[in-house]
């Protein structure tokens, strides 16, 4: 009579979202779609509450394969915020975007479940399950609209995503071969001081994992699908994929590389190169975009570089930096996409020139967007600055000076391409409005959430940073 260690408490956030997803799946046949969306939101909120209740208790289930430590919880909360904003936006834009199926919410929640599993994961297989649940739902969400553009986007996403997963899985296999275990703790202990008999296997495995994650978070040179996806998929979907999914992928990287692999050689230096490439490519490519949506897509790529900087730092400084930056990134990107979704006439988004004089047509939206762009560009007092600052600091203290300088130069370029639309909005212009007219209260709510969050976090970073700053929770990243 063997009884595995099953304790439901740490599972609660995941279970709630999963139940929400199931409910959305089934209720879709009986309720109108908006009602389903409401149900999903409730599920998300409940899950958030349950997370808050788990704070600082450091529970774990399935003998450590699933751990609800503060890291998981903080990342999970970020994910929930992103998803909530997505749902709010979809409230308005779904019908316009021909996305108004109950399946949309259901799949979204399944994806969220997957992301949460990643954040909570305590061993490679759990992480893998989460990753795949997320990706698979993601593929469908991206394709759901059924338009030519979104189908192409989904196709690209799917093919490259599948390749990424395959590489990732092979990496897992190799790491397992090298260490004989799949749990983070086991790997960490097995690799501490490199008592492994076959380091080569381990290193190759680690690099393959890096490669696979590179696909998921869109590090150059594995980023080709990103702009097409974020630009081609409906804006709501782009919002979701570029925030929540990315957060989750980074959560996985944090767990795997910050926790399990922290004393495995060689991956850090490779990651360094990848980051440099990402910064250069992402920022330069973004400079030449004429469509705001694609601009955002490339900015997402560029930001991957900035975010990954924090990964290079040792967990005690990099972890909190990454978490804070991810939160900020989610807020500002989601808000920017939300504004886009609120104002765009078609799913192609609008060209940057169309934004001229937006301030005089929709002052509130324009200011909000300006705040988001300023934050994305890393201008104080908005939180984006603090995030960049933390990432730089983490990377710098880990000794990557050159990379930090590259990043700084990159953000100069970033400032330029964020500034153009931001300033164009304020340039007086007599041409008639090109935006979608109409009532969009929920979207506005989402935007407000994002903008307020960005501002408050910028002026008082401690509100969020203080929660995660405690280095103790980052030393046990792999688990006890």
């Amino acid at each position, binding site marked *: 009579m*063997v009884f595995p260690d099953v304790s439901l408490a740490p599972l609660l956030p995941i279970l709630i979202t999963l139940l929400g997803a*199931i409910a959305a*799946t089934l209720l879709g046949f009986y309720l109108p779609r908006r009602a389903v969306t409401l149900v999903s939101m409730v599920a998300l909120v409940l899950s958030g509450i349950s997370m808050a209740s788990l704070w600082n208790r450091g529970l774990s289930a399935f003998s450590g394969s699933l751990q609800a430590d503060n890291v998981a919880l903080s990342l999970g909360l970020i994910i929930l915020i992103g998803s909530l904003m997505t749902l709010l936006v979809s409230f308005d834009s779904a019908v316009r975007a021909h996305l108004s199926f109950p399946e949309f919410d259901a799949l979204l929640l399944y994806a969220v479940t997957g992301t949460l599993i990643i954040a909570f994961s305590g061993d490679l297989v759990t992480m893998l399950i989460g990753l795949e649940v997320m990706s698979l739902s993601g593929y469908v969400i991206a394709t759901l609209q059924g338009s030519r553009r979104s189908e192409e986007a989904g196709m690209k996403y799917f093919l490259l995503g599948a390749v990424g997963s395959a590489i990732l899985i092979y990496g897992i296999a190799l790491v397992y071969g090298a260490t004989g275990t799949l749990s983070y703790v086991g790997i960490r202990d097995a690799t501490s001081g490199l008592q492994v008999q076959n380091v080569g296997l381990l290193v190759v495995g680690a690099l393959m994992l890096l490669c696979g994650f590179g696909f998921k978070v869109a590090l150059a040179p594995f980023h080709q699908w990103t702009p097409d996806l974020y630009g081609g998929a409906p804006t709501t979907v782009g919002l979701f994929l570029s925030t929540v999914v990315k957060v989750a992928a980074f959560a996985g990287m944090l767990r795997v590389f910050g926790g399990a692999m922290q004393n495995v050689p060689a991956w850090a230096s490779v990651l360094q190169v990848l980051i440099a490439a990402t910064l250069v490519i992402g920022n330069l490519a973004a400079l030449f975009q004429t469509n705001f949506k694609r601009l955002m897509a490339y900015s997402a790529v560029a930001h991957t570089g900035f975010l990954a900087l924090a990964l290079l730092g040792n967990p005690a400084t990099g972890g909190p930096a990454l978490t804070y930056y991810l939160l900020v990134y989610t807020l500002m990107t989601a808000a920017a996409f939300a504004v886009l979704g609120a104002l765009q006439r078609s799913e192609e988004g609008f060209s940057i020139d169309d934004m001229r004089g937006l301030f005089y047509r929709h002052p509130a939206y324009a200011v909000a967007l300006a705040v988001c762009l300023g934050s994305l560009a890393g201008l104080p007092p908005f939180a984006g600055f603090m995030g960049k600052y933390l990432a730089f600091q983490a990377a710098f203290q880990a000794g990557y000076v050159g990379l930090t300088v590259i990043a700084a130069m990159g953000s100069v370029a970033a400032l330029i391409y964020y500034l153009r639309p931001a300033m164009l909005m304020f340039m007086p212009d007599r041409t008639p409005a090109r935006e979608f007219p109409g009532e969009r209260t929920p979207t506005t709510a989402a935007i407000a959430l994002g903008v307020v969050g960005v501002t408050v976090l910028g002026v008082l970073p401690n509100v969020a940073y203080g929660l995660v700053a405690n280095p103790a929770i980052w030393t046990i990243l792999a688990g006890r």
Partner: protein
Amino acid sequence: MLLIAGGIGVLAVVVSLLLGPKKPSASKLMPYESGNDPEGTGRERFPVHFYLVAMLFIVFDIETAFFYPLAVAYQNVGAFAFWEMVTFVVLVLVGYFYILKKGVLEWN
């Protein structure tokens, strides 16, 4: 065994190739369409329904595959196994119910 079985099949084909008469003619080699001349390609798209069935099969077959180890080890695990199974089946049934309502199992 596979080899043997395969061998027998090949043998049969080869033998008949050697012994069988060869009198091909256009009309003899023409695909059969109730006597009419065949129209278009023989491999036109087939109803998407078959794709659906195939995918459903994959999914549910994997689900069955999950059952086997559980089944074999069932009596060693005890009551826990049962609840595990119930959870699993419930999840499967959700999907089943979904496709049922979607009318995938309908053939008109």
